[in-house]
């Protein structure tokens, strides 16, 4: 009765059932061009990742002399120590604060708005709001960064984490509302009706009915926004100044400016900053990927 992103996608993933039946024709229709492109692309993607990872464990002194594609015989954690000593824990905490501080209100507000838009579609105000959010999808963050900078200065928030949180939240809202509204729309009308018959207010219906039934979509939107904000570079670049307000991508860039010649250390910093996202990827790959295409697949 609920259509979740994973369930709508499941026909694609239903490999087990599909594999048994038409395995013969599949073998006959072998896709040579696709296969070649597939393996080539695998190499293109894997080699830089592999090189980055193994180089980050090489000692700087021996890095230049060694074969770049062979892992070091005696791997060192020296580079990682240098990165951690360069305040990366602080930047990590900053990134966590900004990401959580923006994603939680963005998803919460978007969900409330999505619910209101679907339930109150008869109201002209809410349809207009929907139109505004749709239009918002087309606003590029880059183009608004100068006025955002001005507003942040006027609010006396320049060079603080809230300066990053506010615009990040705003730019996460349009796509979140769009995706969540699609899923709230899938909740059967009868369920809403029976809630109303039981005397529930919109507020209780929102939390007791709509939220549990759209939980997978909420998760998807959360992951997508978290990824975007975690990786954000322009806002920290423009809206912060002092080292202790840096988030990871910006810290990475300044670290490279300082230790540019120390290639293994720079790569260790790259690996460290991407580690949290890779852990997320390992555990929630399906949600993450469905999150990436959520806005466009429906």
């Amino acid at each position: 009765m609920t259509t979740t992103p994973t369930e709508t996608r499941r026909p694609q993933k239903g490999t087990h059932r599909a594999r048994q039946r038409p395995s013969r024709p599949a073998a006959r229709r072998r896709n040579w061009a696709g296969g070649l492109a597939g393996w080539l692309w695998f190499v293109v993607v894997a080699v830089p990742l592999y090189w980055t990872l193994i180089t980050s464990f090489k000692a700087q002194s021996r890095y230049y002399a060694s074969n770049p594609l062979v892992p070091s015989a005696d791997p060192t954690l020296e580079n990682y120590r240098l990165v951690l000593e360069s305040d990366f824990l602080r930047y990590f905490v900053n990134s966590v604060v900004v990401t959580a501080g923006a994603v939680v209100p963005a998803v919460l507000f978007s969900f409330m708005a999505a619910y209101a838009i679907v339930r109150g579609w008869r109201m002209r105000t809410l349809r207009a709001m929907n139109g505004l959010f749709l239009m918002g999808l087309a606003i590029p963050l880059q183009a608004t960064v100068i006025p955002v900078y001005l507003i942040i200065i006027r609010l006396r928030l320049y060079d603080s984490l809230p300066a990053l949180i506010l615009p990040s939240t705003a730019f996460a809202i349009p796509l979140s509302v769009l995706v969540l509204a699609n899923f709230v729309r899938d909740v059967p009308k009868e369920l809403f009706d029976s809630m109303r018959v039981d005397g529930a207010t919109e507020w209780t219906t929102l939390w007791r009915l709509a939220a549990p039934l759209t939980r997978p979509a909420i998760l998807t939107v959360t992951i997508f926004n978290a990824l975007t904000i975690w990786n954000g570079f322009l806002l920290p670049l423009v809206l912060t100044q002092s080292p202790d307000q840096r988030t990871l991508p910006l810290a990475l860039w300044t670290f490279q400016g300082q230790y540019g010649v120390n290639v293994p250390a720079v790569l260790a910093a790259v690996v460290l900053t991407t580690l949290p996202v890779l852990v997320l990827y390992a555990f929630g790959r399906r949600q993450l990927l469905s999150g990436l295409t959520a806005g466009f697949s429906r």
Partner: protein
Amino acid sequence: MSALTGRPPRREPRSILPWLAAPALVVFAGFAVIPLVGVFALSFTTWDGIGAIQPSGLTSWRAVLTDPGLPHALWVTFLVMAVSWAVQTPLSILIGTFLAGRQRYRAVLGVVYFVPVTLSSAAIALAYKALLDPNFGLGAGLRIQALSQDWLGRPGLAFGVVVFVVSWQFVPFHSLIYQGGVQQIPKSLYEAAQLDGAGRVRQFFSITLPQLKYTIITSSTLMVVGSLTFFDLIFVLTEGGPGDATRVLALDMYKRGFQASLMGPASAIAVILVLVGLALALLLRRLGGRDAGASQLEGA
């Protein structure tokens, strides 16, 4: 169930709905809609980013429109857009159809493909900057002449590198869109074609590609409009250089505004960025009819 009659009038709880949407509206208006209007207003002012904002009519616009840097930035932006589209689209379609296949190992390859999608542009750019270093990079380490060029130091090469890294980062995402598109093509079409004796290549060109029409439009729109906003990657990788070889519009705006402290002209460029993006989105929409979802509804 029959208690319906005893309930207060239905109108009452309904009225809170607009209030539920209010928080999202306030934040979105304050930090996205107002800035969009604001950038237009700021393009008619002179401001150094710190001091007072002086209205100055068309001065900024005149400065920007007569600067030979603008046509150059537009040209570079267009080139990045066109070349990266031409590189990414066939690759994404091929890989998407490949991933849509049933073999298990494809899913395993898929796990690796999508790693770049999750990484930040800054991290990717830094890794590539190190990897492509003519003295200490991968090519130099392997002692391969062809690979140890001054990749980021020569205009043509740097442009190629930007297109390559952009593709490296975004092909997986578009493959994912195409994978979904391919999997929605009815199997019966292929079975019928097979009965008619059509080969694999023929099937690809007469079934897969035409059936992917709307997917191609969706993906192309995202690619083209998205390419206007490449900033992080180019900023970290080349900073627009060497010279101004990779100075795209978004970078041009940043450099004028935040490095040269000319917020007025930078705002004018931001307005141009918005207008170009809007024009492209509308153009692609017209070319393709509608987006996939709407067109399916219309067909029904």
